């Protein structure tokens, strides 16, 4: 399959990622700012009043900005914790919430919904994690909380810059009623390998067969991701595997069959906490925007079915693929641990 990368200029013509750091004046006063800026001694800091002055500008090229991503340091105001979105799986947890201390991701997956959700490809880092912790504490006073902290970003991939995963893990250590999911496509478990595992912190790896991973730019290979998950598993962390989104690529059934065999040659299926499986699905509004941004991307040009504002593959074809994937995984993992996203969830 083709992609827009065929028309993209060479990477070296761009300024290096994070060579521009836009910083709210209020964010510069935050103690975490010094830590983040110290990771980029050669970067230029441009002082701004509000992150939206940069992030929410009109007429930005999400795609080109991804080639020279700027970092925006900000202080998050307003709502800090959101109820879990209907497009996301709750894995049987009640009181499902998510939070975004970072907006956007350093990876560049062609099918990523963030391209439709955000007007900019730049990365916003909210420094006031303590305010988010405060809101989580307030929720915990009412009931246990299942909180996904790495949905609209990849926190573990950014750990070398932000240290947010360590802080979240420390926070979860103090609150046994809090279950955290930290989802990643990175191979960066080594960043937190020195920490003692917590049973209420789930490290979740999104896995894709090689043919799908070719559409995930700058993402560690599936083999590296598997190795990272294996290290986490051996260290005693609860590990979740997410085959989500499943892509209906040519010869998809064979691709996924071969890949699942490879996954469970590397990882002991009986030690996996659980498995998430979901088809590619996206809001039609987001899809429209992404198609404008990546007009030559084959995955996004697929003639999707549209139901209630959501675009997805043909239901019959996707069900057949999901059935196949579920039954293949069930050879290695207790079927009760397999959570399957259904369109009518």
């Amino acid at each position, binding site marked *: 399959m083709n992609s827009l990368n065929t*028309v993209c200029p060479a990477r070296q013509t761009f300024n290096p990622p994070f060579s521009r750091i836009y910083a709210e004046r209020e964010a*510069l006063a935050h103690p975490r700012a010094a830590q983040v800026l110290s990771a980029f001694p050669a970067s230029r800091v441009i*002082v701004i009043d509000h992150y939206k002055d940069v992030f929410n500008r009109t007429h930005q090229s999400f795609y080109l900005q991804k080639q020279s991503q700027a970092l925006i340091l900000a202080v998050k105001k307003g709502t800090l914790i959101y109820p879990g979105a209907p497009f996301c799986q709750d894995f049987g947890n009640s009181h499902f919430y998510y939070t975004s201390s970072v907006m956007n991701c350093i990876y560049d997956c062609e099918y990523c919904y963030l391209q439709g959700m955000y007007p900019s490809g730049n990365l916003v880092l909210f420094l006031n994690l303590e305010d988010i912790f405060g809101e989580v504490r307030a929720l915990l006073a009412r009931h246990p909380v299942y909180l996904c902290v790495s949905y609209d970003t990849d926190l573990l991939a950014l750990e070398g810059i932000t240290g947010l995963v360590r802080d979240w893990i420390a926070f979860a250590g103090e609150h046994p009623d809090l279950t955290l999911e930290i989802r990643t496509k990175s191979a960066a478990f080594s960043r937190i390998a020195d920490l003692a595992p917590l049973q209420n912190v789930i490290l979740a790896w999104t896995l894709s067969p090689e043919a799908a991973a070719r559409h995930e730019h700058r993402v560690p290979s599936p083999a590296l991701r598997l190795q990272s998950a294996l290290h986490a598993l051996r260290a005693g962390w609860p590990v979740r595997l997410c085959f989500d989104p499943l892509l209906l690529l040519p010869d998809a059934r064979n691709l996924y069959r071969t890949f699942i065999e490879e996954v469970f040659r590397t990882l002991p299926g009986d030690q996996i906490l659980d498995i998430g499986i979901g088809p590619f699905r996206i809001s039609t509004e987001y899809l429209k925007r992404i198609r404008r941004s990546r007009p030559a991307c084959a995955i996004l040009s697929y003639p999707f079915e549209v139901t209630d504002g959501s675009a997805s593959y043909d239901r019959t074809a996707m069900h057949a693929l999901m059935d196949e994937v579920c039954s293949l995984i069930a050879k290695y993992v207790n079927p009760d641990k397999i959570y399957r996203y259904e369109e009518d969830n």
Partner: protein
Amino acid sequence: MLLFAAALYPEAAPLIDFLHLKKDPAFRAFDLFTSADAALIITGCGPANAAAGTACLLTARPPKSSDSFVNFGICGCCSRDTAIGTPYLACRITDAGDGRTYYPDLLYASPFAEAGITSFSKPVSNPAALPRLPESSAPDPGQPIAPSGRKQWAYGTLPYGTLPYGNLLFDMEAAACYQSARHFLMQHQMIFCKVVSDYGTSGRPAPGAVADLLKEPAASLTAWLSGLPAPDLSPDPFTESDHEAIRTASERLKLSEAMHAQLIRLMTYASLTGHSPAKLLAFFAAPEFTCTSKKEGKRYLEQLKYRLSGQADL
């Protein structure tokens, strides 16, 4: 295509020379100089002229996604530590009129330093009297933030907080050019290249001196621009015969506008997955093919979709 806006002829002269631009006598509202792959407008001084000239240029030469717009000219500088003739790219543009600040994207590596610029509606004669930013809630920007001790947020030679409006440079056009151009262009397509000509206290240099001052920066600018990539963000996935086949199929299947759009989407997918739209649609161009109604055409469209979505062999 490179699209330039300069306030005065002396500022434009080096570009006209380097790019071999010729005056377009048919263009009446402003002086316009053009070549096959560049156009330059002389807007006149001040924000109103700059906005009008920019809009006029970008209307006359509607930019494609691979084009760049450059506002080029001289500017004043708040710091005498900055040498006259130093070129900058603006990373931050403040309109002194309403205090709004804009941030053009600087995605491509360049040989130029970067600085913030404040645009005024009249010449600045005493930069020392310009208002400073309120810094009440911010840390003292004069103090290093990074442990390395580097004053990373400084533009040029002065820290941000000591500069009027937080910017090192000042001029009369950049903010207006930006506000006009952003209606026509993406953020990364707008470039503001300004060369320090004075410190605001000694008046602007004579026209001849301006052209001399801008010669070298204009040469660097044109050399840099000529090496810039021109990413085509809307590549055409079809060959000419694909286009013809789509037109014919659309007519013969009696497709509505919406159905025609659907056919284009399907054929885009076909093309990107290695199929030939012309071959796929050849059936509909055959003389013996008949389709009597839009309803029947819709059925053929559904069949195409079924085949392309991987549920039947192509």
